[in-house]
């Protein structure tokens, strides 16, 4: 049996690189002790394929160079995977908006029930994943002969870069003609990407306005080299853009240090940050649920505490 990993390409300005979470996907795939192939569905992928070949444990890197993958659609990626999927027993990717768009399509085309956001892989096609916004863990066993899954990247330790895989270029099936890519809006920021940042500073509803959010949290994030995050309440109130929302319906982060400012701690938000190594909560309300998951809690007026913290760094 062979395992296929779908890699995600991140575009930063005009620069393309593999998502670092591919290292966790490869690490997760080590479970099966089987050859691992890594698929890069893109355009001008030669340099990325070279990089991917150095990931320990990867036997073969398969890459495409096709116009249709300059902006990959779920339909195009799914059809590509189907065209090369003859002998794979496991198809997996790190859980992201890219993989959860494409892989359910792959699973349905292969008549397989997919398993998303796997926290732990066990013997005999058995997996642990969470339901009800992370409030319950389920252990489920798949009866399908082929497994299609996404893994929760922060539950796995990334693979090292000591490999030397062969690189194979593949041709793509004809483009799926019924979907047309039009445009994208990327959040422009000199800060690190939220999902990969070592430090995250998040603001909640208590920030009270978009101006406060920027004026208080930006200088702190700059001093810490941190990414900015926000709760759904802050996003819905218009204090922060929706692409920095941390939580069940946003991005899941697991930085070394997570600083929650004026965040009450709704279960949906905690789901998105509970794997952080150290959590700091600064909130005026001593009963805020965020303090139940914080290593260090400071009950204080954030409008005084944040400038003081920024100044002390």
């Amino acid at each position: 049996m062979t395992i296929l990993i779908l890699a995600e390409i991140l575009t930063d300005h005009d620069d393309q690189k593999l998502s670092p979470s591919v290292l966790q996907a490869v690490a997760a795939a080590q479970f099966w002790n089987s050859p691992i192939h890594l698929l890069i569905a893109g355009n001008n992928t030669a340099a990325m394929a070279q990089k991917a070949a150095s990931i320990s444990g990867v036997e073969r890197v398969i890459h495409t160079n096709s116009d249709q993958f300059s902006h990959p659609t779920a339909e195009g990626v799914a059809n590509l995977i189907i065209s090369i999927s003859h002998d794979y027993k496991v198809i997996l990717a790190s859980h992201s908006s890219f993989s959860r768009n494409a892989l359910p399509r792959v699973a349905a085309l292969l008549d397989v029930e997919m398993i998303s956001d796997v926290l732990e892989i066990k013997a005999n096609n058995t997996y642990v994943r969470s339901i009800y916004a992370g409030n319950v863990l389920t252990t489920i066993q798949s009866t399908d002969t082929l497994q299609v899954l996404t893994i929760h990247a922060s539950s796995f330790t990334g693979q090292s870069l000591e490999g030397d895989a062969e690189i194979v270029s593949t041709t793509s099936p004809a483009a799926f003609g019924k979907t047309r890519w039009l445009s994208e809006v990327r959040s422009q920021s000199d800060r690190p990407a939220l999902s990969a940042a070592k430090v995250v500073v998040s603001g909640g509803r208590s920030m009270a306005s978009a101006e406060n959010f920027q004026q208080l949290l930006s200088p702190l994030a700059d001093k810490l080299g941190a990414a900015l995050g926000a709760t759904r309440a802050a996003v819905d109130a218009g204090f922060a853009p929706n692409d920095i929302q941390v939580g069940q319906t946003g991005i899941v982060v697991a930085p070394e240090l997570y600083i929650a400012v004026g965040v009450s701690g709704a279960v949906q938000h905690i789901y998105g940050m509970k794997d952080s190594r150290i959590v700091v909560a600064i909130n005026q309300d001593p009963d805020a649920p965020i303090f139940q998951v914080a290593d260090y809690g400071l009950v204080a007026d954030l409008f005084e505490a944040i400038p003081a913290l920024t100044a002390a760094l």
Partner: protein
Amino acid sequence: MKILVAVKRVVDYNIKVRIKTDGSDVDIEGVKMGINPFDENAIEEALRLKESGLATEVLVVAIGNSANQDVLRHALAMGADRAILLEAAIAIQPLATAKLLKAMVLREQPDLIILGKQAIDDDTGHLGQMLAALLDYPQGAFASVLQIEGNECLVTREVDGGTETIALILPAVVTADLRLNNPRFVKLPNLMMARKKTIETINDSEFSINTEPRLNLLKVSEPPARKAGIKVGSVEELLSKLRAHEGILL
């Protein structure tokens, strides 16, 4: 244009579910149920397309036992034209649900299918993409903006790090994100009127689709809780505690 919206009955989003003492499943006996929040966004968007004159009919479908009539009535009270309950005995997993919905699509021939992007109980988020695959339709998952232009549906999708806009040739499947719209409140008189509307019932055996679960639930458990730490008295104390940690450079 005809729009089909599928809705799911789930545990109310305000409720923290409990686990059965034997760890065999979650205990939802007697717990307040309601319509999946993302599905309300799907209904709302369909209704807005109808109110703007772009759609002529909004059909809602639920799959499950007769208890699902309440979420269908909720959809009717919001303004849906017609409701179908596809009766199924067992809890049906996403792939089988997609197969049943495909059968409904072939029967009803909608031009646009809008679903919620995920159900808040199993949190899978597979159904829309699976349905699109089985129908060989284009898909617009995690939609925050939806527009109809000619024979195309323009969808702005929420993706990691921003948004992406794509055009789908109809018929297509779109899954609704929470930011797509603010669903309307259901007024009591509308709810009373919805009670009088007929809900068509179809038994899933009519489609002879194998809906046996592919995934077996072995057990459920509590996630390891993150322990609460300590309260610090000042910014200075906070910094000195943090600086004492290995690997944190402040």
